[in-house]
């Protein structure tokens, strides 16, 4: 049985994420324990609220080290919503000094979207990357987004890498990164745990990819 830990660093409604991942058959616990989070088969990093608060909360439980060490060992991590945004180099959200630093797993800036209505709230399409495992069987579905900031560019040079990341896109006012599959590190800007059957299928794809 695949064990999944949801990293409990004070970010919002983790109960829904737990219930949603449980529907895949995985054993799911919510924990901030360093060893438990490090050793689980898979780690889910949730995130709601402000970018800087999430980064601070993560660092409080050494989440940056947990993520870094897991990825170094090829152990799966899934970031959701702000849990995805913090993986980038920086964000301009509420940043009077220009930006707040992120965990810098990927280069690039999380910026406010330019759109007539913000937050981007609701069900939107995703243009899934070619040969995406994440969107296998669900590439025509809509997923539930709620955010005002996003990575509007993908800056990691694919030609430097043996296995280039699969980047999927969505549009609200402008194009932004909706999801990334980068080896063991996956992330979604939308909320699979709030995206009905399509979201549960996506989580199933994640767990299947781990087995």
């Amino acid at each position: 049985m695949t064990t999944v830990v949801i990293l409990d660093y004070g970010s919002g409604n983790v109960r829904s994420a737990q219930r949603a991942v449980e529907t895949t058959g995985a054993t799911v616990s919510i924990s901030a324990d360093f060893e438990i989070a490090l050793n689980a088969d898979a780690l889910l990093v949730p995130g709601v609220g402000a970018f800087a608060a999430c980064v601070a909360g993560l660092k409080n439980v050494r989440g940056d080290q947990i993520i870094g060490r897991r990825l170094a060992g090829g152990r799966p991590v899934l970031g959701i919503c702000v849990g995805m945004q913090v993986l980038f180099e920086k964000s301009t959200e509420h940043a009077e000094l220009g930006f707040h630093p992120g965990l810098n797993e990927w280069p690039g800036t999380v910026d406010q979207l330019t759109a007539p209505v913000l937050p981007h709230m609701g069900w939107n399409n995703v243009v899934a990357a070619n040969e995406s495992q994440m969107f296998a069987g669900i590439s025509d579905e809509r997923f539930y987004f709620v955010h005002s900031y996003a990575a509007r560019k993908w800056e990691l040079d694919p030609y430097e890498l043996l296995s280039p990341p699969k980047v999927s896109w969505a549009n609200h006012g402008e194009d932004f990164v909706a999801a990334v599959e980068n080896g063991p590190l996956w992330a979604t800007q939308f909320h699979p745990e709030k995206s009905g059957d399509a979201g549960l299928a996506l989580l199933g794809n994640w767990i299947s990819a781990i087995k």
Partner: protein
Amino acid sequence: MSVAIRVIPCLDVDAGRVVKGVNFENLKDAGDPVELAKRYGAAGADELIFLDITASSSDRETTYEMVKRAADELFIPLTVGGGVRSVSDVDQLLRAGADKVGINTAGLDNPELISQAAAQFGDQCVVLSVDVRRATGCPSGFEATTHGGRNSSGRDALEWIIEAAQRGAGEVLLNSMDADGTKNGYDLALISAVRAVVDIPIIASGGAGKLTDFHPAVVAGADAVLAASVFHFNELSIQDVKSELRSNGNEVR
């Protein structure tokens, strides 16, 4: 390709039980909000709203318990409003599993509550719920009311919505007390007036009676359309509403 217009059923709940009855076939318990929530989720609802009208504050525990049970079974967003008085109330609802919390009368009494909740939990989970009626004494012609439309707040509705959005409300649940219960269509003048002054999403509420009522609300500026009795009494299905919206060129899920 763009974000879909959301179709949202709203359930009025009193001490953990649905009021005003819901007329579905094959329901084991027509008063159980959780069973209804699941039913609506399966029927294609994009989101659900529980409006807690429990009078007694001693029954709040029942509400949290209900939200917990619903959140355990439901994989679409859940908003809970009604009787939210403090940051601690918001916190407890979010912990129980609500994704968003509606703030109404308490926000008018204490606007700082909107700012505090948005700062602590994020703009995305603060829904300004406002009951609006026409009033000649207000500059915009619309007044915000309290206590479900029974009392005048003395505040211009548009001014209040602008202020709440600046304070961090991430969405506005716009209830027209003039249209509510009439089944004569949404309050299009009100929706347009609000659309002109804020850029947060608008949930139109009050007045839905027939399929052709929904598209005009979207044209007026609504991002989501809420209805209660027409869904509860099977007068309209969620899929019928979506088909009607789609045939008018709107994106739906």
